[in-house]
């Protein structure tokens, strides 16, 4: 999920930071246990937030213990015990890694992409077996996104909404959560998906122009002021919608961390991204 859904650590209590870290390590260990060692390299920080929310909403317990791992052989870190939510997050990481590597081969012909896919193949097949519907939906959405992004004149709304649909499906396929919470979670994730897509588009504008890659905010090889202004409005709207959906979730243990992300970290990041974009592209 591109590394945006992470808390502003300076505003977290030490206990909350440890919980975040334990969730991240928990997902990593779950991947190792259920999908093999290689997909661990694809794990991003965002997945810790999803894991914490899913455990909270499913009413599962937060049990952690110190465990060693390849990067922490001596100073072992607290890690949540593998449970349904962590297994699911591990599967989502593996499925997304597989599709990301496919994209990299299709778009940029990076040689390491098919090699990477071969290394995670076994883990991918296990994740696909446990989540057949999700795997198909992710593939369909990413295939559609690939086709949409061939049209450089397409309105930025459409690929952004597909990115939202991707996270919607991930939330919808989560297990052991009641329907009302799942609806609110899915709507929140959908709006965060739209936000993340546009944030990424704004941050990557310069490099995409240089490489000639698709960017929904670029028109005829130059940043479009009109599209950028509209995209900034849409980002604010999507984030406000995500907050409204978040308000309807009944979180307890993960509430301080998720509050930090939704109410502080993301709005701050948005302000920084918008200011930087206005500065670089001289937009008023």
């Amino acid at each position, binding site marked *: 999920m591109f590394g945006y859904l992470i808390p502003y650590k300076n505003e977290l209590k030490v206990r909350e930071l440890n919980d975040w870290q334990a969730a991240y390590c928990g997902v990593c260990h779950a991947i190792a246990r259920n999908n093999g060692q290689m997909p661990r390299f694809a794990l991003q920080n965002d997945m810790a937030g999803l894991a914490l929310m899913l455990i909270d909403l499913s009413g599962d317990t937060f049990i952690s213990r110190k465990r060693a791992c390849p990067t922490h052989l001596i100073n072992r870190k607290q890690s949540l015990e593998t449970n349904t939510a962590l297994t699911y997050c591990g599967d989502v990481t593996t499925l997304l890694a597989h599709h990301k590597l496919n994209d990299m081969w299709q778009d940029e012909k990076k040689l390491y992409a098919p090699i990477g896919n071969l290394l995670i193949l076994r883990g991918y097949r296990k994740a696909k077996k446990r989540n057949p519907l999700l795997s198909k939906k992710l593939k369909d959405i990413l295939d559609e996104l690939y086709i949409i992004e061939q049209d450089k004149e397409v309105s930025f709304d459409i690929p*952004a909404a597909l990115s939202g649909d991707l996270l919607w499906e991930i939330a919808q396929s989560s297990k052991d959560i009641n329907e009302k919470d799942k*609806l609110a979670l899915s709507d929140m994730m959908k709006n965060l998906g739209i936000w993340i897509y546009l944030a990424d588009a704004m941050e990557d504008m310069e490099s995409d122009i240089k490489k000639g890659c698709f960017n929904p905010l670029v028109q005829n090889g130059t940043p479009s002021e009109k599209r950028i202004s509209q995209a900034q*409005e849409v980002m604010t709207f999507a984030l406000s919608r995500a*907050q409204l959906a978040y308000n309807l979730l009944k979180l307890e243990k993960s509430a301080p961390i998720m509050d930090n992300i939704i109410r*502080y970290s993301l*709005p701050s990041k948005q302000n920084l991204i918008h200011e930087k974009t206005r500065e670089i592209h001289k937009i008023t």
Partner: protein
Amino acid sequence: MNPYTVLEIDDNATQEQIKQAYRKLVKKYHPDKYIDNPLSKLADEKMREINAAYDMLTGEGASGNYANQGTSYRSSGSNTGSTDFQKIRQMINAGQYDQVMTILDNLSNRPAEWYYLKGACMMGKGWYAQAQNFYNMAYQMEPNNPEYQKASQSMYNSNRNFNNQANVGGSDCSMCNICSCMLCSDCCCESLGGDCIPCC
């Protein structure tokens, strides 16, 4: 239901604290915030729960306040609407956005309601910028329609409230900034003949 848990207050909260908590939650879950939102029913339920909790603790009969204010795509009283558009509204409420888009694209008659429903459909699909454009067109064609007016202002109002909230909490005024500001004000004042800070 534990009314204290619902209102997010301690068991020994005073009446004033209960009222303050109630007002804070009403602001958070107000139905106006959930217009054109697939979660409007959940927000309605939450609002009923809050009202019931407030009733239990104060006996002031808040039940019915702020709830059931109609946030789905029901036909407004001023809109006669054809049968087709009534059915389309029901389909939008049911989340059948792709089918609705196809039906609307095949209609040759395109009054203001057509643009409004197209906008509603795009809002449901997450095409927010395009939805806003269609809402604006519906409002331009029928400026006296309150439904279209609310829809065309929804993104602007939502963003304005969001930015106000971000600014209220996000000020980064350090002591250095305050002192610098005061010194500059004093210099400007003195250059105009006054003296903001006599000792400087």
